[in-house]
Structure formats: structure tokens, C-alpha cells
């Protein structure tokens, strides 16, 4: 064993213990019944359960809506932040990014309290507001990053070739900032699919998301069914991440 690979050992142990092993366990549990026999029953149960499918669809719907709202709000915000004419201070950027530093649970609890104080009826509306509030910085940051680093000469070249400021934006700046948008989508969509705490606090458990069901099953020791549901969710997240792999350049993202 060479020296360099020795250094990698702690990471390898970490990966095996906390990534590979849990994944294997999830897969094993998902295809077993309570007494350890191989079965597809967990999956057939899920696909036959209208309630579970409904929750699953709702989760996807909420995640898509949340992501869409985050793009609509986050892109212009990132654009303004990256525009030196409009934003002359680095402080504004920090103000936008700061919520990322605060624990999501704290923020969610605070938001729930705020709704309570304002007397707003908890429901899907409050859920979306809370989610957007939680995830918006994760959309703004990668987009801001890529817009900020974009060579100004592209916009100048487009203007020089006859593009109005609006055309410069749509035909050059937007396509060139897509890697940032994709990064943002990854960071918003994936966690929203699996969230459960936000829906619990912000709808008083009126609306159940997929993450909530998984949590409930596991809490009530339905390990095998919970594992199967987790696997379904992992597949969805895996499909989303293909979006990223298809684009050759994601260098502008948050990583």
C-alpha cells in the first residue's frame, strides 16, 4: 500500500460506514419481509396504496412548485446581485446568503411562529412559502456565482452584433448561466422531495409529504416498508441528478 492511499483510508472507512453500508441495508430491507425472506411485497404494497401514491405525487408536485418559484425569484435576485451597477456592496450578497448558515429547523420553527402570530391558516400555501424561504438561498448562490464570474465580453460581443439588452440577456446570459441554474435545481429539488420537518411544522401535519411517510413508517418500526419507500425516493433523486451529468460543464455551480 502506497503512502497516498493510506491517507485515503479514513475517507474510505467513512464512505463505507455512512454511505455504502446504509445503502446496502436499505436495499436489503426493501426486498425483505419482517422475518427476513426475499419479497417484492413492500413495493406492491406501495404501488397499490392510493394514499401513498397520492402523497408521493403531492411531494413531487410541491418539490417542482418550490423549485420553479425559487428559479423565478432567485434568478432575478442573483442577476441583480451580480450586476455591479445595481449592487455596489458585498454586504447585500451576504444578507442573501446568510439564511444558509442558520439551521433549517430553526428557520422553519420561526416561520411557523410567524404565521401563527399573523393568524395565517396553515396549509399548502404556508408550506410553499416556508419551503421557498428555506431553499431560496441555495438557488441564488450558484446562479449568482456563475453570473458574477461570467466574462463581460460575451455580453459586449452580443450587443456589438446588434442584440438589445433584452436579447443579450435571453440569448447569451441565460444560456451561459444554465449550469448555475442546474446546480440550484439540484440543491433545491432533491432536499424538498425528501423533506418532512417543514411540512410537519408549517401545516401542523395536515399535509403529509413523502418524507413524512417514510419517517412515520420507520418510527413505527416498519423498517422494510420504510426502506422500500426510501429506495423509490432515491431512484427519483438519481433520475434528477442525471440532468446534471448530461451537461458537460457544471463548473459554474456551487461546488
Amino acid at each position, binding site marked *: 500500500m502506497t503512502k497516498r492511499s493510506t491517507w485515503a483510508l479514513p475517507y474510505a472507512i467513512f464512505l463505507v460506514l455512512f454511505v455504502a453500508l446504509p445503502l446496502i441495508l436499505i436495499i436489503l430491507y426493501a426486498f425483505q419481509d419482517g422475518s427476513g425472506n426475499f419479497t417484492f411485497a413492500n413495493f406492491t404494497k406501495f404501488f397499490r396504496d392510493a394514499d401513498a401514491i397520492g402523497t408521493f405525487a403531492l411531494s413531487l408536485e410541491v418539490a417542482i412548485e418550490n423549485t420553479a418559484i425559487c428559479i423565478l425569484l432567485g434568478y432575478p435576485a442573483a442577476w441583480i446581485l451580480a450586476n455591479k451597477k445595481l449592487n455596489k456592496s458585498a454586504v447585500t450578497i451576504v444578507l442573501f446568503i446568510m439564511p444558509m448558515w442558520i439551521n433549517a429547523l430553526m428557520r422553519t420553527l420561526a416561520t411557523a411562529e410567524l404565521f401563527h402570530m399573523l393568524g395565517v391558516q396553515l396549509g399548502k400555501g404556508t408550506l410553499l412559502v416556508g419551503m421557498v424561504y428555506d431553499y431560496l438561498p441555495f438557488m441564488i448562490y450558484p446562479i449568482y456565482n456563475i453570473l458574477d464570474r461570467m466574462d463581460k*465580453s460575451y455580453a459586449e*460581443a452580443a450587443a456589438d*452584433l*446588434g442584440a438589445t439588452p433584452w436579447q443579450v440577456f435571453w440569448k447569451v446570459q441565460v444560456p*451561459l448561466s444554465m449550469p448555475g441554474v442546474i446546480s440550484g435545481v439540484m440543491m433545491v429539488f432533491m432536499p424538498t422531495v425528501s423533506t418532512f420537518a417543514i411540512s410537519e411544522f408549517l401545516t401542523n401535519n395536515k399535509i403529509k409529504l413523502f418524507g413524512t411517510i417514510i419517517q412515520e413508517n420507520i418510527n413505527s418500526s416498519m423498517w422494510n416498508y420504510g426502506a422500500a419507500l426510501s429506495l423509490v425516493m432515491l431512484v427519483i433523486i438519481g433520475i434528477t441528478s442525471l440532468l446534471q451529468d448530461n451537461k458537460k460543464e457544471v463548473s459554474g455551480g456551487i461546488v
Partner: protein
Amino acid sequence: MKGNDYIIEFKNICKSFGDKCVLNDVSISVKQGEFLTLLGPSGCGKTTLLRMLAGFGSPDSGQILINGTDITDVPPHERPVNTVFQRYALFPHLDVYDNIAFGLKLQKVPVNEIDTKVRKVLKMVSMTDYEDRDVESLSGGQQQRVAIARAIVNQPKVLLLDEPLAALDLKMRKDMQIELKEMHRKLGITFIYVTHDQEEALTLSDTIVVMNEGKIQQIGSPTDIYNEPQNSFVADFIGESNILNGKMVKDRLVEFVGHEFECVDEGFGEDVAVDVVVRPEDIYIMNRLEGSQLSAKVKSCTFKGVHYEMFVDTDKGYELMIQDYNAFEPGSEVGLFIKPADIQVMHKERTCNTFEGEIVDESHVKFLENTFECPEGHGLEAGDKVKIEVTFASVELIDHPEEGMLAGEVHFLLYKGDHYHLTILTDDGDHLWVDTNDVWDKGDLVGINIAPKDIKLVKYND
């Protein structure tokens, strides 16, 4: 101002970035179809001027006209010019074809017409069959060609080129120069070209505008600029030259390197200090002394391919550079001869440093934002405004900036045969000119001292 045949007119353009003046009263007129080059060292304002023409950045004062119409406030996308950017700025999300078609698509040109035009320019820049290539997979030279194609496909009235060849290697640059010249001939449109490469400027241009520190130094054809530089900056920047202090004795007679020479210049007056430029290839060098104007001793001789480059010490101790097809052995005594027409006499921009100042007390005067000791007995009151004169040779430069009364940086240097003439930029942004025998390099940080006896106070007549 319609009715003249100028396609572009810059009128009294001034521009500052903060405290720094980058363009100072620049006026240029460009004829239809001309190949005009803005030439100068980096930071001379040439790119700022070009960008203004494209619409990126507006002048603080002055006007830009295209075909007699003021376009100073017209946004870039409405100007009839296209630019080839220095680092090409090709759109990485589009392939070669779509990069070139970008402008035409914006103009809503019919698809089949776009196709014809794109293929035509691709052929013109020898990039046929590259339509579908990703621009990032192209070499520097190929990207350059696509950038040119993308600009000329829109048939602009004026093509702007911002150091387009700077990123290419020497061989490629030479080839592209020839192609650009050919393209200019074929297209028949006006080219405005920005470069810091004097050879490139001489090769390509119909007209060269030499710029330095935001000011136009000279406008003229390549031969004018080369043969008749108007000041020592132009003479030094364009080609190799011997720049020497001289004295115009009378019309058609000039003295330099300790000898009098016949020349063709008139109207300078008698006994007037001038700068003299002699190109190294214009000095005749021979083994005998009869028929020569002065004698010299060869110091070094280097083979340069086409010619030999020699440095000689003249009988009065001046160093001259000479280029000749024949080699002369170092150490040998030679005779030199310069024809009257090959001596270029120029007005001196200044003969000593002059500053505006104010008397502080009996023995102190304030100028260049510092207080200097000065000779007593000037008989002026504290607070009086005075002109201060300091000769070039009496300014002392020292190695350590912190030990001088002023600190500065060597900004520009000129060898004048027996001494260096330096332009020093002080930390406060003022200029100071110094004659010295010490060897300094451009960018050296120096301390500046002026002895009290060398400060000459001149009272204003009011």
C-alpha cells in the same frame, strides 16, 4: 457637418477614470475605406477610444460622428460597427455556425440567406467544414478566424479590431496580417485596428495614429511616421533609432554628436535646442576616413539575419547604433557619413523641468506637493506664486524611494547617445524629466532629490 468624406470623426474626446486622464483632447478623422491603426504602449488610451466607438463607455466630453451623425449617445447595438474582440469572446454555448449567424438572426434575415452568407464568410476566413464545431475545440488561430467571420458577416460600415493578433504566435501572426490586409482590400470597408506592435501597424495601415498617455503623438502614413517622427517618443516607439540632443545652428545646419551636419530642415530659428533622429540604417559606415563626416570606433557587431547591427563610439564619445550589410570588426576605426535628408530634426518638447510653486518662507518653496529648500535672497513674500525651473541633469535619483524628498517610478527612458533621458512619474502623479549617466530600468522605484542650488525661481510678471 455633412458633406465631407469622413466616415468617422472623433472630436475633442476627453475621458478620465477617477483621477487618471486616459484620453486628452483626442481628435481623429477617418476616411471611408481607410485602414487606420491606433498604436501605442499599453495604457495609452487606444483601447478606450476603440471601445467608445463600439459604444462601450462614453466620453466625458467630445463627440463621435459616423457619416456626419453624432452617435455619442447611441447604444452599441444600434451602431453600424462590428468588433473583433481581443480574446475573441466567441459564445461558448453556440457552435461555429451559430456564432457567425448570431447577428444575422437578430436582424431576422431569412434562413436561406443566412446560410449563404455564413458559408461565404467561412470560405473567406478559410474555415469551410468547421460549421458544426464547438468553438472551444478550436485553436487560437481558428477562433480568431471565427471571430472575424462573425463580425464581417453583418457587413458593417466599420470593422473594429482590438489587438486581434496579440494571442497568436509569431508565424501565425504574420500570416494573419497578410490575410487581414487582403480582407480589407476585398471588403472595401473601413478598418480601425488597435495594436501595440509597431511592426504590425507599419505593415497593415494606411494611416497610423501614435498615442501615448492619452494624447495623440502623431498621425500619418507608415512612411511618414517612420521617416519623419514628430517627437522623440514616436521616433523611439517606431523602429530602431538614434535619438540625440542637438542644436539647430541655422537653417539647414544642425549640430549633434559634437559635429555640424547639413540637413534639410528650416524654420527652427538659430541656436535652438532640438532632438535629432537618425535611423541606424541611414548611417553610412566605411573603412576609410576620407569622405566621412566623423570617425568612430566599432564596439560590437552582431549578425541579425538581413544585416549586421553595430554599436560604435564616435570621436566625441557618443554611442550610435548602425545597421549595415557589411560587418566591421570590433575595435576597428571607421568613418561615418549621414546624408542631409536622413537627419530628422524635431522640436524639443521641453528643455528643463518647470513647475508651478509657492514661496513658503525666505529659504523654502513648495512645489510637487512638497516643500523644498531653495536659495535665499529671492526677495519674494511667503505665499507668492512662482515658476520653478530645474534642469534635467540636476535632478538626483537614488535607489531607495524612502530616502528621497520625493518617490517615483521610472516611466519611460530614452538613450541619447551619451546619457539617458528618463521620464519619472512621481507617486503623486506628476512628471519629472531627468538626464543621467546611471543605468535605470523602466519600472524602477526611485527616490528623487533636488539640491537647493539647482532650484531656480522665476517670478511671474503680473
